[in-house]
């Protein structure tokens, strides 16, 4: 766990953030299909129910590894329900159940031999409302490591520094690691939650509207961060903000009434959508 993180941290970003440079280059054939080897999460005919209400209808998606995939769509379209199905966060809701398959690296998330605790360690999550524990900054980031059984102080210190650095928070908090996390600003709290998720070295990072409660400056920091992180993590992000989806993501899925209307390379969705409904939504005609 530690060694892989070490290499992750030291590795340089191959190119400057695209959305910062202002250019948007994409290979025209990239969006059409994904090579089998690139697929990290594969969803097939996934339905989801709250009690008797069916909220997801036959979702089928292939999410590529080490790319940012955005889920957009109007409120109540099932984006959040879907993203929370990937790490089985919906399990804690009574009467909620999923049907169909979600495979991560070919392994069925809802399979009988899948341990949900291990699954969630591999699939980190950042929530809409930042939710730091009422503990110190240090203890927040250490939480996932400690439940994994790590006790070595030096090892913990190391990973905590690296995780906070990756989340672009280290310089702001390094002198007050043992102060309460609740004293941080909203944007800092959200980056702390990202650091906390990164500390356990997940393969996938799910972000459920991570910037919707933040001001523009904090938002742009989170977006830069997402861009940096995709070299090492597969990121799925739910967003209400279409500009944000356009800025940070490689592929975009447009959800509507519990169905995926269109899923393609982000440029295609925003510049040249196949479906009329997608075009109406991304151009702001409804939603």
């Amino acid at each position: 766990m530690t060694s892989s993180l070490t290499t992750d941290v030291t590795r340089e970003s191959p190119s400057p953030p695209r959305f910062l440079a202002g250019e948007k280059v994409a290979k025209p054939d990239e969006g059409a299909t994904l090579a089998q080897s690139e697929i990290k999460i594969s969803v097939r005919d996934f339905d989801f129910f709250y009690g008797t209400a069916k909220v997801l209808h036959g979702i089928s998606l292939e999410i590529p590894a080490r790319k940012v995939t955005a889920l957009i769509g109007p409120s109540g379209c099932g984006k959040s329900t879907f993203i929370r199905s990937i790490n089985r966060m919906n399990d804690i809701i009574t009467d909620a159940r999923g049907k169909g398959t979600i495979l991560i690296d070919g392994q069925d998330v809802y399979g009988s031999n899948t341990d949900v605790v291990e699954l969630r360690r591999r699939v980190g999550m950042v929530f809409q409302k930042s939710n730091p524990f009422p503990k110190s900054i240090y203890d927040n980031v250490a939480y996932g490591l400690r439940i994994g059984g790590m006790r070595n102080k030096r090892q913990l210190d190391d990973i905590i520094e690296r995780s906070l650095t990756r989340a672009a928070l280290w310089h702001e908090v390094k002198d007050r690691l043992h102060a309460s996390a609740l004293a941080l600003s909203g944007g800092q709290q959200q980056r702390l939650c990202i650091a906390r998720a990164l500390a356990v070295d997940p393969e996938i990072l799910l972000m459920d509207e991570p910037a919707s409660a933040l001001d523009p400056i904090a938002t742009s920091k989170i977006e830069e961060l997402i861009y940096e992180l995709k070299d090492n993590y597969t990121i799925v992000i739910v967003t209400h903000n279409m500009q944000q989806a356009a800025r940070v993501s490689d592929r975009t899925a447009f959800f509507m009434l519990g169905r995926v209307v269109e899923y393609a390379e982000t440029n295609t969705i925003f510049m040249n959508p196949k479906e009329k409904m997608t075009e109406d939504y991304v151009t702001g005609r409804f939603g």
Partner: protein
Amino acid sequence: MTANLRRRKVYSGLFEALCALAVIVALIPLAMILFYVVKEGFGALNVDFFTHMPKPVGESGGGMANAIAGTFILICIAAAFAVPVGCLCGIHLSEYPGTKFSSIVRFSADVLNGVPSIVVGIFAYGILVLPVKRFSAIAGGVALGLLMIPIVVRTTEELLRLVPGGLREGALALGATRGRAVFSVIVPAALPGILTGILVALARVAGETAPLLFTAFNNRFWSTSLTQPIASLTVQVFTYAISPYDDWHRQAWAGAFLLVMMILALSILARLAVRRLERMNRS
């Protein structure tokens, strides 16, 4: 229009006045109790009261040292019994709120809360005194504990429910098991409130007399044995207050004063603990 507005203002003023009156009516007895207890009790308090044993009938002077120690022991037993049971029960109720079992437990806690304390005393008498044919500190402590349990259960449950759901999700999303999430994140977040609940419950049972009458009974001698009858402030106050001796009446007032002060101190302590913990949680 203006007539209507005037009428509404009159009604509003009327109800505000009624509310204020109700507050005063509620506060008068409290103020009077405090006034009398302080007036009669403070003067009767002296060093002997804390350090001396009761004198035999007919001799004046002496104190309630045994009863002070006894009350302390009794509430310790009660807390040792009720805090773990009550807290775990409250955790269960907040974690599994919808199950049939939970609603039964919740209803039972409410019923237990309403059971007259003398009945709880009879129950403890039946299961802990009758079989061994001896009054004991244990029996008294358990009776007090039984009275504490429902209060601790319900405050624990309610305070755990106030913890934002996001914290639980955050912990689970990091790979915490359900139990781990509860004990490492949710319970600590609610701890200040739970502690207050426990202290309030302690304050409540520390003032109980009825359940001790036939469980802990009373003891005119120094005893710290858990299996022997033990003195308590409340029972001692009761015994002295119904006696025909002026000196005992004086001591009863002193005992009452001490009880009130103890309960006040517990309440203040509860407040301070909350403030301290909240500050720790915040900054």
